[in-house]
């Protein structure tokens, strides 16, 4: 198993450990989501072990769409401004349409859906910026951003999608230029590093949730 898989497991473990604190907010949805992530990664790993590598793309293609939908839903739950909420919700059908179009007309069934990934990445970075924008508004300024659990989720997502955008954009080019093996190696390296950042941020977020709950209980 790769090292990032252990970080995913750790993140899931932290979420379960902080369940009591997470269930007070929408952050609790991260538990089933991370469980699904771990299952998908495990199936993906088995596919490599049993050398059915080329047939597991569909799994990641479907999972990526679900992943983007989940993050967009979480953003919609955390946005304060109605226009941003609407924007996040309207991204959901847009993503399904784009993904379906990519499946039927563009990249088909047996290729990795990098276009969907790029489309989703763009919106994720955009939503992260929107979230930070809300925090620089005067009415929010008294609160400490670093103590907000969702801030750390955004940190992870922003760094992950910013870092992976180049390799995703050039993935098709690498395939077509006889660099498939080297390209894959770089792809795996970059994604693993970014996954470690992403899931560490998630874990920090869950621990902050727990800390905040503890503090609010001690103030009663």
């Amino acid at each position, binding site marked *: 198993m790769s090292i990032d898989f252990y970080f995913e497991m750790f993140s899931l473990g932290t979420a379960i450990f902080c369940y009591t604190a997470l269930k007070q907010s929408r952050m609790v949805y991260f538990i089933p989501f991370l469980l699904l992530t771990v299952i998908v990664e495990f199936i993906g790993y088995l596919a490599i072990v049993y050398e059915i590598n080329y047939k597991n793309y569909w799994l990641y293609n479907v999972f990526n769409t679900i992943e983007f939908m989940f993050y967009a839903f979480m953003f919609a739950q955390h946005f304060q401004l109605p226009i941003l909420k609407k924007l996040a919700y309207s991204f959901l059908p847009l993503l399904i349409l784009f993904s379906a179009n990519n499946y039927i007309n563009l990249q088909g069934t047996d290729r990795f859906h990098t276009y969907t990934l790029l489309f989703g990445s763009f919106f994720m970075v955009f939503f992260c910026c929107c979230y930070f924008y809300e925090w*620089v508004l005067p009415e929010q300024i008294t609160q400490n951003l670093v103590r907000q659990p969702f801030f750390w989720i955004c940190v992870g997502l922003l760094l992950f999608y910013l870092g*992976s955008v180049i390799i995703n954009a050039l993935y098709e080019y*690498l395939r077509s230029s006889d*660099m498939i093996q080297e390209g894959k190696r770089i792809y795996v390296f*970059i994604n693993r590093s970014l996954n470690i950042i992403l899931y560490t941020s998630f874990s920090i977020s869950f621990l902050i949730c727990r800390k905040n709950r503890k503090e609010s209980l001690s103030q009663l």
Partner: protein
Amino acid sequence: MPKEQEGILVTIVVASVFFVLIGIFFLILIFFFLRRQRKYKMEKEEMRNRFEQTLLKTQLEIQEHTFNYISQEIHDNIGQILSLVRINLNVLAENLPDVHFEKTDELLGKVIRDLRTLSHNLNSNRLQEIGIVEGLKSLLQQLEKTGKYSTEFNAPISSLSFVNKDNSLILYRMVQEVLNNIIKHAQASKIVIDIEAKGSQCHLLKISDNGRGFDTSKLQENKTGIGLQNIFTRAKMINSSVSIKSSEQEGTTIVFEINNQPLLK
């Protein structure tokens, strides 16, 4: 692997790292911006609080100045005139029936005494001479003299020794306000003041009565009168906290927690 291909892959890695660094820079920028904004807002809030306190202090100084002026006028002018009236009345007494004279003389005597007491209560210089503890004791003695109340005063010798002149005056006015409220609303027959130490840096001043009490939930609904609001505002000025315990028909206890580190210096 050809050098050209290697160059492409290195470029991809460098570009990805560069993007991540941009993200980190962006996050740091937001973090410092928010921290600065929060600090600025807190400073603004603190300045506003200081300004309010200075304003309140000035108001209290003007009030004390007015009180002192009225007190002097009562003592030096009205009091003197009334004493003169009493002497004149004694001269005229020969032509008046005894009963009328005695009654008028008695009333005049009472007016002079009451005015003296009022003059003492208004004069802050006197409080500074005798100290806060004696001042509070004297307030209870005056109530006792009316015959309507029995009073009790319990305080160790060193009570409230750390309270400075300005703050002892504010505290004195707060207690006066509480006693006024008891007289006006409580229908009490007994008033007790207890001062006790809560560690070396904090004293508790408790004023209790056996009156009709009131529903303290009204305090949370902001349905308090000006008197109580004044008490809360003044308590804030001297870094004290006020707690009120009361229930209907079971009297009221007001506790001031006076700390050794007043905000107002």
